[in-house]
């Protein structure tokens, strides 16, 4: 898994590439936790390069969206590919996480 972050105005875009699983989810959680701790609570997860997530990745997303919303922000998803989307749907996450076709749409949603 590779993670990189890019600030776009008041929104922080976290690009996730590869697999988020029991081996890598803690590393991703550390990234998100650092952003929230720094007050960067308007988050977008760019999932265009995300190939796979297990329940470990879902716990990271849920923990992050909870932390961000408690501070007045949110975690929104962009460019989720079908295999990952299926896992999100089966887990009931599509009803709690807002998802957009691409990063610009997800970033723009914070201005709405």
């Amino acid at each position, binding site marked *: 898994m590779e993670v990189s972050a890019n600030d776009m105005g008041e929104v922080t875009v976290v690009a996730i590439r590869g697999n988020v*699983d*029991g*081996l890598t989810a803690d590393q991703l959680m550390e990234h998100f936790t650092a952003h929230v701790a720094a007050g960067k609570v308007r988050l977008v997860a760019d999932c265009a390069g995300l*190939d*796979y997530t*297990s*329940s*470990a990745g*879902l*716990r990271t997303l*849920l*923990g992050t*969206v*909870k932390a961000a*919303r*408690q501070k007045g922000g949110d975690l929104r998803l962009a460019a989720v590919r*079908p*295999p990952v989307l*299926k*896992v999100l749907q*089966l*887990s*009931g996450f599509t*009803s*709690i996480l807002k998802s957009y076709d691409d990063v610009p749409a997800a970033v723009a949603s914070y201005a709405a």
Partner: protein
Amino acid sequence: MRPVQTAEHPGTAEHLPAFLDFIDNACRGAGVDEDASMALRLAVEEVCLNLIRYGYADASPGPIALEFRVEDDAIRLTVRDRAPPFDPRDAPAPDLTSDVLTRPLGGLGLHLVRCLMDEISYCSDTERGNRLTLLKRSAISGKDD
């Protein structure tokens, strides 16, 4: 002749990469579709982590043995272990509907396995240990059954 591949390692977290490499390589070698490969990888990860974190939590870790078997266009994956018996089909259903702030963080792994596999069977006996069998149908495109 039906291709069968096996792997056995101690049920500890440091061996999770070996289990994941095994299923990734087996799926690639058998020409398993992307969706089915993801489902089988997820099943291996969730079942193995459950054994590592809970099944072997109160005892010195025993083995986890995987068997990957191609059956026409389906994949039959068998997981054997020596942990106290636990039928994954009996795991409580997770909360999928409550508000985000009150939704529990756990309980999704075995739920996903149940959703993504087409058949699950489980048996346990004191002599041979536990055997979980997972079947993924239509896993290989273009292969007639």
